[in-house]
């Protein structure tokens, strides 16, 4: 059986800055993989390399057995298998919610208007914002916008969903709505690769947790192991800081 996503020997540099230093990741069908780590560790860049929004400097990316990094690949066709949800939602501001979820179905998948509307509405209902279909993104709360963004990606029937810190731009009380929908997706068997700071979500929903630091995968395994009982010093200190943000370390150097 082919892997849903397979990344091998991935390197990415921006000029002289080496962001990813040899990453190997495999996501199996139906798995939820959460990527955690400090900011600047390359988590988002890894995710953006998986659907080639960033071109890898070296290495290979396979999605459902197709090599996206191959020089002659039809990248637009290959991306249709990958849904992406962004930190900043990136809804199309000049279109209604319904148009946001149908435009790519109609222009890319060439679905009829009625078919696209039917599928779009079904996904809007699924994420709980169907009553906002005729409104414009600017009229919606952040949580609603992010759920529309999920419906937009789901309407393309992707094999894998990529989430790039989907709750980081949200007001705290709206985070729950988005995480609930993500949890529901996971329960339905969607293959998901999630970059997140929500440790609770990673612990409860992920099949595999990946801890990244300084462009490398430091530790990976089931959440009970990586989050519950980390082996590496860097993982321990990161989790310690994230889970006890008000705790002052005794060893903290005084300025």
């Amino acid at each position, binding site marked *: 059986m082919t892997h849903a996503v397979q990344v091998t020997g991935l390197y990415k540099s921006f000029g002289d800055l080496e962001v990813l230093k040899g990453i190997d990741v495999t996501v199996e069908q139906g798995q939820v993989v959460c990527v955690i780590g400090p900011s600047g560790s390359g988590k988002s860049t890894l995710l953006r390399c998986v659907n080639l*929004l960033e071109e890898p400097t070296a290495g290979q990316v396979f999605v459902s057995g197709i090599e996206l990094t191959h020089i002659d690949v039809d990248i*637009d066709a290959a*991306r*249709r298998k990958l849904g*992406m949800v*962004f930190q900043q939602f990136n*809804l*199309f501001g000049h279109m209604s919610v319904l148009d946001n979820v149908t435009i790519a179905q109609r222009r890319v998948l060439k679905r009829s208007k009625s078919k696209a509307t039917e599928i779009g509405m079904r996904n809007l209902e699924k994420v709980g914002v169907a009553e906002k279909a005729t409104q414009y993104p600017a009229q919606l709360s952040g949580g609603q916008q992010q759920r529309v963004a999920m419906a937009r990606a789901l309407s*393309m029937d992707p094999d894998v969903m990529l989430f790039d810190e989907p709750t980081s731009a949200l007001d705290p009380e709206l985070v729950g709505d988005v995480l609930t929908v993500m949890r529901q997706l996971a329960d339905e068997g969607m293959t998901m690769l999630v970059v997140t700071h929500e440790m609770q979500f990673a612990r409860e929903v992920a099949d595999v947790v990946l801890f990244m630091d300084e462009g490398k995968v430091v530790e990976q395994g089931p959440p009970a192991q990586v989050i519950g009982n980390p082996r590496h010093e860097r993982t321990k200190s990161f989790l310690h800081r994230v889970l006890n943000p008000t705790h002052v370390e005794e060893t903290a150097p005084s300025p």
Partner: protein
Amino acid sequence: MTTDTTVAEAGSAPRARLSPRKRKKISLAIQYAVFAAVVVMLAVIADWPAIQHAFFNLDEARKAFPDILAVGLKNTIIYTLSGYVLGFFLGLIVALMRLSDVLPYRAIALVYIEVFRGLPAIVVFMILGFGVPIAFQDYEMPYDPYGTVALALGLVSAAYLAETFRAGIQAVPKGQTEAARSLGMSQGRAMFTVIVPQAIRIVIPPLTNELILLFKDSSLVFVIGFTLSGYELFKFGESLSTRTGNSTPLIVAGLLYLCLTVPLGYLVRRLEAKQKRGRV
């Protein structure tokens, strides 16, 4: 309270005789006085009957109608709108070339913008009016004089409009392209369904400004040379003035330009205010 302290300070420091508030008041009074003096002087020395006879002669103004509307105004509107439509699409194409990954496209767009923005419009019109018919003798411009005028105004306005479109396209957040591409849209598809519609919305006020400028630039097409039926507002007023030896038709033409441009200027201010509200 403030006055008291200032007065006390003025007493102790003899050089600061006036408070800033008083100085400002006196300075403004002087400015008003100078302005009023200039107006009064001009009003006294000007020969009002002569001015009225030469510029605001109602008999002469009446003679200009209705042809100044049926020919002059009509042609000004046709020339400007046809030039604007051509300039709009050409400008959009040049803007996309300017932002292209393909170096020759970028170079062509840059040269085009620099040349047509840098040349006085009247030079472009003369080259098109006299040079092109000589260069392409076996071909005839369709719908002349409208074809030549639309081409001339379109070529000039496209250079300005291209820069406006480029600014608009660059003002659309990068995340919009990324979202469109991640949904499987090609670069071109993303550009035309997602980026350009939002870019045009952003630049509607400057686009309207360009239309106002083009209404005025259309007065220069007289150098191409037409018969009476091709005269636009300025040429119509000018030729009538020359014929009658009275400048009133030019004033009429000028007022008709203002009838077109002032409402458009008002529209720009409304649109800008609306955008400002939208952003907050």
